[in-house]
């Protein structure tokens, strides 16, 4: 479906907390965004049909009790399984950021799972990422630096599944040593993720889950490198991911 202003639903409620800045990022690049509380979606599940992009933003749903993302995913599955299947059957996009990533792995629409960081501590810092997979979300990006902030970001996957995913270009990002790690002399993969995986894809790249926060890198001043080079640019590197999503609906003319 081609249109200039795709409709975006960002879920909220029960401790999700990055919905407002994520909304700003999508609106900045031309999206038509609604933040919808999960209970309002459950009350009117049909509304999901109106949307092109579904966003599970970052946060701390249910305080990570019983395991990150689990309780929110249970709620979603209990009430919206049919609607989710319908949404994914259309030519739509889904992104899960941080807690959103944890939620959609628990929903089972992405492979693998996320568990405690290797040193069992919550960590906020920037990481360098290398794009490996193929996805509308990742057009034109080869390397990017974004911040992480999580306690359960260790991605777990079996060797067998990993090989399959690699073949199918389902590894979105891996942690790598780039300009941030070199700048602050940091290790590349701080949470101990299997195969350095920071983000994964499914449904032909239409569904993206990632631990780093692109919305926290939408302005140049958010980067730890900004003080070294106060560029006059208005846009930070993370914005490209949001632009790509919008462009998918603007450019995608001859898709089935």
């Amino acid at each position, binding site marked *: 479906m081609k249109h200039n202003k795709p409709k975006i639903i960002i879920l909220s409620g029960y*401790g999700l907390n*990055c919905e407002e800045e994520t909304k*700003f990022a999508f609106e900045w690049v031309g999206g038509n965004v609604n933040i919808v509380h999960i209970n309002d979606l459950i009350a009117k599940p049909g509304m999901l049909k109106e949307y092109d992009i579904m966003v599970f933003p970052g946060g701390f749903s249910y305080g990570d009790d019983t*395991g990150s993302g689990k309780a929110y995913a249970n709620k979603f599955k209990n009430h919206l399984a049919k609607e989710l299947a319908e949404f994914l059957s259309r030519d739509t996009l889904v992104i899960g950021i941080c807690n959103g990533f944890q939620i959609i792995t628990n929903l089972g629409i992405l492979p693998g799972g996320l568990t*405690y960081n290797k040193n069992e501590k919550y960590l*906020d810092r920037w990481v360098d990422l290398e794009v490996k997979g193929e996805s509308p979300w990742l057009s034109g990006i080869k390397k990017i630096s974004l911040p992480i902030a999580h306690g359960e970001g260790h991605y777990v996957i079996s060797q067998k599944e990993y090989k399959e995913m690699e073949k199918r270009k389902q590894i979105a990002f891996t942690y790598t040593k780039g300009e941030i790690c070199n*700048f602050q002399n940091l290790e590349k993969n701080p949470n101990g993720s299997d195969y350095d995986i920071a983000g994964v894809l499914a449904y032909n790249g239409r569904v993206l889950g990632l631990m780093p926060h692109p919305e926290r890198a939408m*302005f140049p001043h958010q980067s730890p490198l900004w*003080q*070294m080079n106060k560029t006059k640019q208005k846009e930070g590197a993370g914005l490209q991911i949001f632009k790509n999503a919008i462009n998918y609906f603007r450019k995608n003319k001859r898709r089935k």
Partner: protein
Amino acid sequence: MISRIYVADKKDPKFVQSYLFTHFFSPQELTRIANALTNPVLENFSINSFPKIKKTFAMEIGFKPGVTDNVAKTVKETVVDLFRGKAKPFEIYSSKIYFTETSYNPLIERAHIALKKHGVIHFPLEIPKVVLKKETPVINIDLAVSDEELLKISREGVANKDGHAKGRAGTRRGPLALDLASMKTIQEYFKKLKRKPTDIELESLAQTWSEHCKHTIFANPIDEIKDGLYKTYIKGATNLIRKQKVGKGQQDFCVSVFSDNSGGIIFDKDYLITHKVETHNSPSALDPFGGAITGIVGVNRDTIGFGLGAKPVANVYGFCFGYPEDKKRFFKDKNLQEEMLPPKRIIDGVIKGINTGGNCSGIPTLSGFVKFDDRYRAKPLVFAGTVGLIPKKINGKPSHMKKAGVGDYVVVVGGRVGLDGIHGATFSSVAMDANSPATAVQIGDPITQKKLSDAIIKEARDLSLYTSITDDGAGGLSCSVAEMAKESGGAEVDLEKVPLKYPGLRPWEIWISESQERMTLSVPKDKWKTFQKLMDKRGVEATIIGKFTNSGKCIVNYKGKKIMDMDMEFLHDGLPKHNLTTEAILPLPNLPLGKGEEKGGGLTQTLENLLAQKNISGFSFISEQYDHEVQGTSVLKPLSGRGRINTDAQVFRPVFNSNKGVVLTSSTYPSYGDISTYHMAACAIDTAIRNIVTAGGKLSHLAILDNFCWCSSNDPRRLAQLKDAVKACYDYAVGYSTPFISGKDSMFNDFKGYDEKGNPVAISIPPTLLISAISVMPNLHKTISPEFKKAGDIIYLLGETKDELGGGEYLKMLGVVGNNVPKVNLEKNLKTYLVLEKAIEKELVASALSVTSGGIGVALAKACIGGMLGCKISLDSIGKAYGVDVKLFSESQGRILVSVPPKNIPAFEKIIKNIPHTNLGKIIKDGKIIVTAGKNKILETKVKKLHNVYHSFSDSMK
């Protein structure tokens, strides 16, 4: 039926999560539940049989009955939802089972160790349910007794009826903490009414009149100051500054100060920004995690409770601890049964509490500090603050105005009421000893609060569904309802309507409980249905418990019977005034000043040692475990530069569409108070202001907050120190035109107990004043970070260096207090700060670092570490008469270390020509740090080495 579901990691279980159910589920239903609680990719579950594990024992740690169990709450929601609300009735209790001996807090947690027998580990199916004894709900108290008996009631609390039957003295309910004059006033009041007070009336008065709520020490007349310290010096300063600003045609940016839960100032034409800093010292001493988390989520509610509700946009923290390596044991009781927690346990718990509170709530924890002193063994100080954002107008009306209307419903929203947090307010108003109540501890539930916060400030507020709102904090409903009743002129509450965590609470307990995550609102009758529906949709419990009236009375009923009937006037203003007097403090003996000039390599070692001091070195282990980037607003972060140094001030962007930035900082110098509390306060204000300007903030749009943490405040000498400090607050706030907008005090941070030999011990914290500052900068793109940027840049020191080592870190390291405490030269410093503002405005500076503890030596080291660059410095042009250690380590105020790119030098020198300044040298590439005095190289080291020293404490805490 009782069943347990165990869930454990497949690969490497560090612990097993246990869910203990009392239920009527079928085995199939139980399996369905277990599946929902297990991520099949990562975990396995088992029902009623403990997972097979190669360990010889396991240790279960769960909560004691009645303590908030957040995991259980989530499981309950999940299960109810799984059966679409049609689940058979059940209860659930969560616990974690470890394979190593794990420390726990017996005050709130229960532990059970199970050994492997016949190859299996088995845990019993016992339910930790709250069982409360049935007892007379309300008792009348005879106050027609001797003064001695009155004091006993105040000190130990109302006697329960439990003892009489057995012919023994009954148990007591815990301190009311009222002085004799107050007790006699109450005695007199009820004598006139010709009746005995009920327990709830007495408890209610004790809450409302507590030092914690009424700030009696700041309110009462003291010596010649008839209006008291607060009115004369703190509020007095703000009133004068506002008047002066208007007189000079400057912007009076204060909008709502000292009257609400937070202080509010102008952000821009559309928004207000609020700030409030609280302390949670006593609860953190008993239960560090619970104390700290309720401290931070509690102060979040002071933001949500500002005006019609501000959105929390930044958290701040400050910790004063005993040293982590201190293993001395102290006990509350003579029999050495009740041990105080050691500093390391307190440190770990408090840091984790702020972590969970802030991270779970989605509020960036931006700004903070940590200080150490042996005397904080008396009580740790835990400062927690929140900055809020609110549109100036909501539906056309000023957002900071609120008024509960006559006839509006009294509505409580959020968490339920339990025994947790009873006597918190009165307890924090006394020294800690064996009578300190365990019920004063609470566990926070940030998610319940997040749901409440979102429903109020993102929805109900903008629909104008309520007329007033306040936080249920100290004193619980007794304070929040009585406070709001002032707006309408009275209130009547039916206490049995308050939702409870478990049955059996007595009315007085319901009324004063400080159970968390609750707010009280006034909802007009015609808005109630909409309000209730909205709260229901957001999973927030909302209940009408009464109505606001204009009867002039605060009336409480319980099951149809009136149990409290008190004049509002007496409740709020009946507290008798009490004249405080001070006694002069003895002058200090003349202690040695500096050590005098040193030659050779001694100073290199001294600087490295100084940098390793815990009061100076980095604390990235705290900064990086707090999410400081959520909400996407970060500009100047807690850690900066290549070498990740801790910044003194932080900048963030609360409104994406605006280029305005908000600058935050705080400052405290407890050790200066050992010499003079006047100068201690002056330096804290000067440093806070300097930190703000150094990062790019504006003096003309800068407000400050005070937090006094004092000790033994009934000692006239401590009061003299207090009076000095408050006087300095007035002098310097007025001098810099920086108004106070909010403040708080905690006056009894003392410990009285016993050492491990049973000898009596008394410890008092050093009088501590925290000054927090908030400023709005017009263009956040001009933010300056503290670290050096580039080799070749020239290093300047702005401001004057004097022989002021007294109370500083250098002398402290040598085991000396000293005498020459830094003094603030207001006129000169003001000039310097305005010049620095101009230089930053013109974008001439590459870095700016506020010189504080450890003087120029430490400032240079930090700027180098931050940039991972070296420098070549000459000390010759700094006050020639002083020894090099004075030059390097004196903590004179008003100084900033600045680096300037060569191309900007002419313009920069022109701007600074009329203020004291020194060209110290330049930044060099090879990482060497070289300091010369005359022809001598007095210090030489490498930035890599300093980097390791600076981070060594933090690395040891990871």
